[in-house]
């Protein structure tokens, strides 16, 4: 009944607080009212006028197109990965999964 596949987005949106909004930013997610109605749809490029309106509304932040920030350094992220797998050192299937994760995590850092 519904298309099940939604395009994958890696690393390409972040939430920013109201006082950091600038004209030209593009909405990565729609802005919705408390009742769930869409006020501005995904992909809208923000103008001065829109920003004024948004600031009058009761929203705490918006999602814009931008690289998501990783809170850990890459080295720490990989060290923690090793530590999470340390009970499973002799499991070939888990080693495969770990190497997929390793590549995935490295990819998050570009």
């Amino acid at each position: 009944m519904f298309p099940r596949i939604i395009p994958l987005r890696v690393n390409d949106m972040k939430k920013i607080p109201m006082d950091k909004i600038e004209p030209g930013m593009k909405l990565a997610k729609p802005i919705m009212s408390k009742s769930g109605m869409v006020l501005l749809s995904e992909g809208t490029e923000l103008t001065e006028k829109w920003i004024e309106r948004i600031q009058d509304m009761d929203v705490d932040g918006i999602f814009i197109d931008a690289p998501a920030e990783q809170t850990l350094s890459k080295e720490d992220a990989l060290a923690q990965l090793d530590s999470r797998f340390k009970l499973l050192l002799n499991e070939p299937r888990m080693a495969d999964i770990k190497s997929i994760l390793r590549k995935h995590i490295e990819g998050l850092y570009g």
Partner: protein
Amino acid sequence: MDRTLIPISRSKIEKINALPTVPGSFKSISSFIQKPSVSLDKISQFISKDPALTTKILKMVNSAAYGFPGRISSISHAVMLLGLNVVKGLLLGVSVFEIMEKMMSGLWVHSVACAIAAREIACKLNIRNPEEISVAALLHDIGKVIMILEYQKEYEETIKEASTAECLIYDAEKAFFTETHTTVGMWLAGKWNFPRNLVEVISCHHTPHLSILAVKETAIVHLADILVRARGIGFAGDHFVPLLNTSAFETLGLSNNDIRDVLVRVEETKQVSDDMAS
């Protein structure tokens, strides 16, 4: 380790509405959904009466964990699209959010990430009702919530034990209690009148080889849980990845590329959980 196991009885857990530690708002939801007479109409009315609950559920159904391409803007629409059991599960899922955040920080994020991962796996496999699997994943650790509410001190010790002994929380639970979170969760899900396949996913997510009615669904949630822990998102009670059950994994027949796609999707967890908290 030599200690007397703390007994957990089914009859006590099933009387969840009488447990003094369970917050009142959760009790009212719990007693509402366990009625066999709950209909689509009644659940719609029940949720719509509560604006905060309405907002949370709409945010959840419009998030990556469900991901309908068109916006779902009303509860009655959500109920029609998702069906009674999914909405019941969502109602419980979003209502334990605050308890999880307060009692076991990170368990909510873990649960949301599992819901996202499970849905993505279900979509890869072209399963007819990915929403049902997603909601099963959202609730798979519900037993932990009740254990930590009812046995707070002991459960905190169990978490500490998992950390010092470097073992899984599931194994640490066995050293402290007569039952684990999977059994507690199974009792609750049964009490709440969830369908038997959902009950089985909860009871067998660490032992997928024991699943009879919901082999595929259980394998999906088992794998979702492992991938989410492996990625290090949220906190389920320990810092380690459980061993993947090979035959459950093979039942699914996923490629390495499929797993990569699931991990990419799981990166959306933070946005979904931040969004829910706001």
